[in-house]
């Protein structure tokens, strides 16, 4: 079934607060085989001009996945998750995510398209601190194969 164009602009309630832990950042960097000290050592991060250790550029996917699941499981979106693959991903960093950040994720449906029988759903997730400082914006495009 083709996605309803009326879904564009639909926004979801903000997520629970996610506190960025330094061990989580280190774990994520290790999973990428990245030994850069700026992800682990506060002194190295400060030498690079950051207040504390920062996260790799793709770390925001951890929060973006959770917020995006809210959209995918919306019955009014009606996407068949078993047929979904990740089509595209974009990160726009307003500043690096860092240890100690208390972040809230807000998901919005940015675009829906149907091309050659495949439904495509683009979700924007805005990550901001609990004080309202924008930190990162992610765009995820999911493709539901052959469902339209």
């Amino acid at each position, binding site marked *: 079934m083709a996605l309803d164009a009326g879904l564009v602009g639909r926004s979801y309630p903000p997520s629970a607060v996610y506190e960025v832990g330094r061990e989580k950042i280190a774990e994520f960097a290790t999973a*990428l*085989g990245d030994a850069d000290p700026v992800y682990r050592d506060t002194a190295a991060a400060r030498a690079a*001009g950051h207040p504390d250790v920062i996260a790799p550029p*793709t770390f925001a996917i951890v929060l973006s996945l959770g917020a995006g699941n809210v959209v995918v499981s919306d019955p009014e979106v009606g996407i068949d998750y078993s047929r979904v693959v990740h089509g595209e991903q974009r990160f726009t960093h307003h500043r690096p995510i860092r240890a100690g950040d208390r972040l809230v994720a807000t998901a919005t449906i940015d675009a829906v398209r149907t091309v050659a029988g495949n439904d495509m759903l683009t979700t924007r997730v805005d990550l901001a601190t609990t004080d309202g400082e924008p930190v990162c914006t992610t765009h995820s495009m999911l493709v539901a194969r052959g469902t339209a």
Partner: protein
Amino acid sequence: MSPRPVDVTVGTELPEQVSRVTRADLVRYAGASGDLNVIHWNERVAREVGLPGVIAHGMLTAGLAARAVTAWAGDPGAVVEYSVRFSRPVVVPDDDDGAELTVRGRVAALLDDGRVRVDLTVTSGGEKVLSLARAVVALG
């Protein structure tokens, strides 16, 4: 050591990065990212849904590719934008060698305020696995 903006021009190439992705890397990334999709660790289920075998998380491939940019930039915080399109799955065999991933990059455009656009070519076994893989890096 970060590249100085004055030394960077359109066509400047990043050092090539070759890495390997094994099943153990997939398990580690699943835990770190929270993406527990079964197709990244269960051969039976991967085949049932029509894949040739267990495949790497697209975001693991994208994260490894981004490493080539952060290493070149010197400060990972200099990567202000990063985008990828997942064009082909990386099949990870059940052996000690895993799949090979090669990342090449070149500066494709000089933007305002000392920022540059880097275009990446990311291949596994000679096939492109990401397309339109691009980063915007704030130099200096």
